[in-house]
């Protein structure tokens, strides 16, 4: 599949916007998670976890799927390919893995938000689960930073598949 330069630029713009948006949303999520863990005011804590549930389902999950989809389109439609270069291949592995882990870890977020919806959460309540949410958000932000850095630096390295393909086409 090959795209015209105009379409390719549009697809690249969409992919960069969605992926960086995902990173920004996760950063906001991390700030809320830390605030929810450390804040003393029960009303603020309640608001924080309700906002996190909304942010997770309405922004982070759609952006993760959007990033994966637009990345696949970008890889298939550009000369970089999907499996030719190590940096693209690693991003292709990182993104679905991050999406899967995100979906699994939406459960504790939803649970804490459910509790916060019906009651005031004190600092001692659900402490391990709230700490888990902070660690997950930090790990997610780190993974997305790595993916962003790979996209910007595009470190050299052609996979065995890419070498075979280059030999066939040359």
């Amino acid at each position, binding site marked *: 599949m090959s795209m015209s330069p105009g379409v390719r630029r549009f697809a690249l713009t969409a992919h960069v916007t969605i992926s960086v948006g995902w990173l920004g949303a996760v950063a906001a999520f991390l700030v809320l998670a830390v605030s929810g863990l450390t804040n003393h005011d029960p009303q603020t804590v*309640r608001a924080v976890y309700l906002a996190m549930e909304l942010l997770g389902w309405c922004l982070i999950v759609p952006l993760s799927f959007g990033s994966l989809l637009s990345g696949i389109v970008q890889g298939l439609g*550009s*000369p970089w390919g999907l499996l030719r270069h190590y940096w693209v291949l690693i991003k292709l592995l990182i993104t679905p893995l991050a999406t899967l882990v995100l979906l699994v870890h939406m459960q504790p977020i939803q649970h804490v938000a459910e509790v916060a919806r019906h009651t005031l959460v*004190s600092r001692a309540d659900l402490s391990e*689960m709230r700490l888990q949410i902070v660690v997950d958000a930090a790990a997610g932000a780190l993974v997305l930073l790595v993916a962003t850095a790979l996209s910007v630096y595009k*470190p*050299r390295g*052609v996979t065995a598949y890419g070498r075979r393909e280059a*030999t066939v086409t040359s």
Partner: protein
Amino acid sequence: MYRKTWVRNMENNEDSQSVAKKAFPNPSNRRPAASEPTPRWVVVFGVVAGALFLCFVVLHLTGHGFGHHRSGSKAPEHVESGLGKIP
């Protein structure tokens, strides 16, 4: 004047890119050697990622992760009893 120069530069850039792509399908403009070794950064990345993944799996399997059913993960008592419930 400025715009004309800019457009010309963009066209030249596009042309040189197209030529490079035709000459070398590899976008890094470098034809890969047939038996190129795996780059060091890929090996280091793989080792670090593998170690982190192993840690994650071991922590979860041994129950040292952040479990959902640990004492600190219990929902507040007043959720079940209804005390302190928000109307």
